[in-house]
């Protein structure tokens, strides 16, 4: 297999996907509850535990489900009962269904023709190259591995170079190398001005691909934005820092005297400090250290990972 350039061409226009007070219920079960968000250019991760309503939300965004309440619009036009939106929108659904009797090239070419692209052959080749499927493009899809089928579906979703791409669990079934390549591709598409939203319940995937997240918990939008910023807004949970310095014990004593610090633990590898206010602590620390002649060698926010943010949100 040859490595190809995953750089996506820059978008000539950008698109915004808006959800305004969107709810969806099935009988008495509320799958999505009053979600509002606006997605612009860049990569956004839609995160949530299984059953949180991610797929229902994606289907409403993609025009495959009508909201019970609220509106989903792409550049101001509704996505429901409006096939015109697919000129600007691509979807990779979670379900693996692909026409197994076609080759990848036939499948992507057919999609290009359905979009009535001016040069469907060139568009199909470009999309297949983007997902590194050129070597296997003439084999029937039925003979592919799960990851190869997934990449073929991504190629079909990208063939018309959409401004908005929605992907439901796109990394399912991919091996680590394919996963890395797909992450690079999504980064590249986002950097080129496209609006990319992908759902995942695997934190590492979201953390590696996108800093911006929409977190769904039990049908509600629990948090939205950069996950580090979200963490800093959680003032009811102390921030945990790992610190190493030239004199950990003396620094521990000094920090305990500060009101912004709620706890200090002295260990063999340094200090673990709990602080209530992120900003106040990070401003205070250098002053305290300098006043006592201590040099801070390492300062790591320990619970600013997406995993910590996510677990706090789910537990809340």
């Amino acid at each position, binding site marked *: 297999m040859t490595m190809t350039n995953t750089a996506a061409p820059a978008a000539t226009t950008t698109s915004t996907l808006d959800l305004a007070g969107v709810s969806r219920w099935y009988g008495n079960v509320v799958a999505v509850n009053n979600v509002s968000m606006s997605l612009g250019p860049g990569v956004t991760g839609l995160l949530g535990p299984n059953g949180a309503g991610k797929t229902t939300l994606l*289907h409403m965004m993609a025009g*495959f*489900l*009508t909201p019970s309440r609220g509106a989903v619009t792409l550049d101001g036009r509704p996505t429901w*009962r409006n096939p015109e939106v697919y000129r600007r929108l691509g979807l990779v659904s979670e379900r693996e269904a692909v*026409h*197994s009797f076609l080759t990848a090239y036939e499948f992507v070419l*057919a999609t290009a023709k359905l979009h*009535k692209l001016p040069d469907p052959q060139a568009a199909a080749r470009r999309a297949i190259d983007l997902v590194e499927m050129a070597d296997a493009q003439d084999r029937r899809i039925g003979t592919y591995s799960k990851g190869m089928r997934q990449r073929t579906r991504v190629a079909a979703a990208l063939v018309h170079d959409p401004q908005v791409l929605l992907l439901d669990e796109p990394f399912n079934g991919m091996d680590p190398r394919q996963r890395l390549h797909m992450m690079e591709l999504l980064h590249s598409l986002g950097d080129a001005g496209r609006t990319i939203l992908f759902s995942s319940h695997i934190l590492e995937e979201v953390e590696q691909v996108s800093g911006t997240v929409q977190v769904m918990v039990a049908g509600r939008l629990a948090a939205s934005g950069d996950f580090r910023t979200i963490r800093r807004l959680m003032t009811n949970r102390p921030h945990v820092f790992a610190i190493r310095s030239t004199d950990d014990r003396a620094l521990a004593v000094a920090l305990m005297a500060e009101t912004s610090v709620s706890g200090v633990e002295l260990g063999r590898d340094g200090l673990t400090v709990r602080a209530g206010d992120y900003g106040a602590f990070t401003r205070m620390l250098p002053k305290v250290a300098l006043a006592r002649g201590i040099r801070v060698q390492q300062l790591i926010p320990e619970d600013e990972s997406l995993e910590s943010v996510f677990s706090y949100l789910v537990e809340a």
Partner: protein
Amino acid sequence: MSTVSWITVRGLFGRRRFLLLLPLPVLLVGLAVLSRGLGVEPTDWGPPVLVGLGLAVVLPVVSLIVGTGVLGAEIDDGTVVHVLTTPLPRSQIVLPKLAVAAGVTAVTVAVPLFAAGLLADSVRLGAALAVAASVGALAYTALFVAASLLTRRPVLLGLVYVLIWEGLLSNVVTGTRVLSIQHYVIALADRLAPTDLLATTVSVPVAAVMTALIILAATFLSIDRLRSFSVAGETS
């Protein structure tokens, strides 16, 4: 051939259920050849073979297999989403699929019916059966394509219509024949080649108008339901 037609044809012939189309037409021709070979009077074997098997079983069952196969199978396995995530007006998806379904059904049914009609009476009867069956194929497949979008069990719904409504009720309660495609086909074939082998209480004008109505209503319904297609396979 449009891309939708091409995918539909590939999908139809790429699935094993296509093999289900073969036995019934072969049985129809086989019985006609056997009856003719044994010297049985056409008045004795004509009605049960041409109508009882050909128009009451082969035509609707083949229509059901093909009609639910062109769209229902794609809805079942989820591949329909690939066609739907394109800006194609939904009519440009339904109409080619309906054309493929009606065409494949017509060829599969009209050829054996022509042969059976020829063996029973004349070229004219064979041709009349083939033409009427082709019209019936369009009506049946339009109905079954629509059923694919109305329910997640289109085959069951189709079987209820063919077996219970047409097969049972229309023989007992003659008034129900006015909603039976099978009787429209008999009326049309009998008009094209008047014969004692075909008999129905439905008049030709009623048959023609009802056939057209069913085709148009089912097609419009399919297009409208496809516009509201939900990924769960339900429409709302």
